[in-house]
């Protein structure tokens, strides 16, 4: 059980971190910059929200297979940890991106503009104005991505299968136990899951409240 949970944690942490690095600049650009074909881009990025995990998993499996389009280019990641990491990143992107975007949308563009007239360069504007304003939103989006990846099942199963220590994460482990009629162990693992998820969601809610107290404070 420990192995499966540790693997879940590793996957969720890496996924959340990747999304923080990718998603923040993307969300910033979507909110503040002119992006060509913005609605189209947004629709593509939010697509995993409506796709069944099995559909996404299927396409990734085909692409990442040794003879797949990506597999031939060295991304031969079917049934590997990298494979389920890539799948999780794509699958959780809409959640993280939506949270990041909301955080940036609450920022008044005029405040950033006036900061420029006050002589603050890009770095200073991020450090003193933008980041303190949006960090609770960024953190809550990251936690959300973490929690969502922890609970991921379909995509991981399709791409990664069920290899202990490599792709058998906690959710799949529980599925395995039930298949094997080991209900006692399944119950233990499930209760750990409930507790973990509860703490995470509580954390997100707390951050959202904190974030609202910052963004609501400029109300005129």
């Amino acid at each position, binding site marked *: 059980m420990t192995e499966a949970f540790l693997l879940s944690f590793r996957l969720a942490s890496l996924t959340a971190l990747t999304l923080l690095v990718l998603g923040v600049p993307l969300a910033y650009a979507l909110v503040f910059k002119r992006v060509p074909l913005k609605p189209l881009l947004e629709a593509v990025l939010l697509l995993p929200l409506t796709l069944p995990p099995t559909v996404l998993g299927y396409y990734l499996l085909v692409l990442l297979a040794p003879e797949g389009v990506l597999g031939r280019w060295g991304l031969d990641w079917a049934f590997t940890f990298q494979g389920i990491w890539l799948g999780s990143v794509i699958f959780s992107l809409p959640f993280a991106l939506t949270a990041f975007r909301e955080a940036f949308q609450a920022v008044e563009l005029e405040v950033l503009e006036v900061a420029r007239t006050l002589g603050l360069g890009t770095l200073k504007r991020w450090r003193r104005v933008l980041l303190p304003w949006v960090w609770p939103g960024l953190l809550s989006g990251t936690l959300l991505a973490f929690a969502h990846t922890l609970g991921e099942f379909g995509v991981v199963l399709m791409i990664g299968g069920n290899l202990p220590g490599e792709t058998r994460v906690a959710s799949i482990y529980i599925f395995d136990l039930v298949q094997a009629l080991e209900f006692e162990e399944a119950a233990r693992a499930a209760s750990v899951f409930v507790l973990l998820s509860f703490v995470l969601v509580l954390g997100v809610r707390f951050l959202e409240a904190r974030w609202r107290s910052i963004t609501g*404070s400029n109300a*005129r």
Partner: protein
Amino acid sequence: MEIDYRLERPLRLHARLTVTDLTVLLGESGSGKTSLLRALAGLLRASGRPFDGLRPEERRVGFLPQGYALVPHLTALENVALPLAGREARVEALRWLERVELAPLALRRPAELSGGERQRVALARALALRPRLLLLDEPTSALDASTREAAVDLIERVVREEGLPTLLVTHDPYVAARARSLAVLEAGTVRQQGDPEQVFARPATLGIARLVGFSNVFAGRVRRHVEGGVEIATGEVVVYAPTKTPPPPDAPVHWGVRPEEVMIVRPDRPLAGPVARNRLEVQVRRIVRKGLAYTLRVEGPLALDVTLPRHVQDRLRLAEGDRIEVALKPRYVHLFSSEASS
């Protein structure tokens, strides 16, 4: 400071004006006032002098937008310290807050301040930049009447003390009247700039007249030239208007008189001299209270708005339906130049 700026977007605009002391730019909404300020701050693409080609960070132009744009998660003091650097930043920021009489509230966040206080924080922050030019966008639009006066007092004082060229944009005639210099933006260009008194009394165009509360404007024809001026016929009324550049006889013209400058003739005090010429018998149709003054709508051969101070109305005790006589003092009759009518 001489300003000469051209904008293409969001609207075409070519503004040339001189900013000295407190200069007010008056214009209707949509005339491009805010766009001009944003261009001067470097936030909108434009060409012109000064600051051509400089980024907003390099211009040292203090810009106060309508919403003040304070950083919500920083205290008043931290907001003012934004443009400052070094160990003395907070001390200096506090000094600027003292200048706007806000030092006791230095540790409050914007949400804990009133509209007027936020504006003073934003003013202190702009001053802390030691700007070469200060831009204020509608600074009184979100304030109530009493705060408005105090805000203009403070702006006026600080600007004088700092010797800072300041361009204040507004559509509020009260603020405009307090300027050192008043410029009016109309149809994409500065159509008139001068002493506020001159602009209020002698608006260059009908549009400017409307903007500065010059409500009694009439179309007429030049009847004949007389000593020092012309006689203008509007319907059956003939009005004498002094002018140094009389339009030719029979030319169509516009003329007008401010509602504050229409005189009510008291039956016990007969008029003499040139005033006796421009007299009209009218009937009071409507009396509206405006603060401590009254606005009368009177009708006769011409329909006029007449503003009366309270002490005059207290003495005259006019009522709706009264028949009275009004006089238009020639020196207050303004003849619009011919291109103004087009």
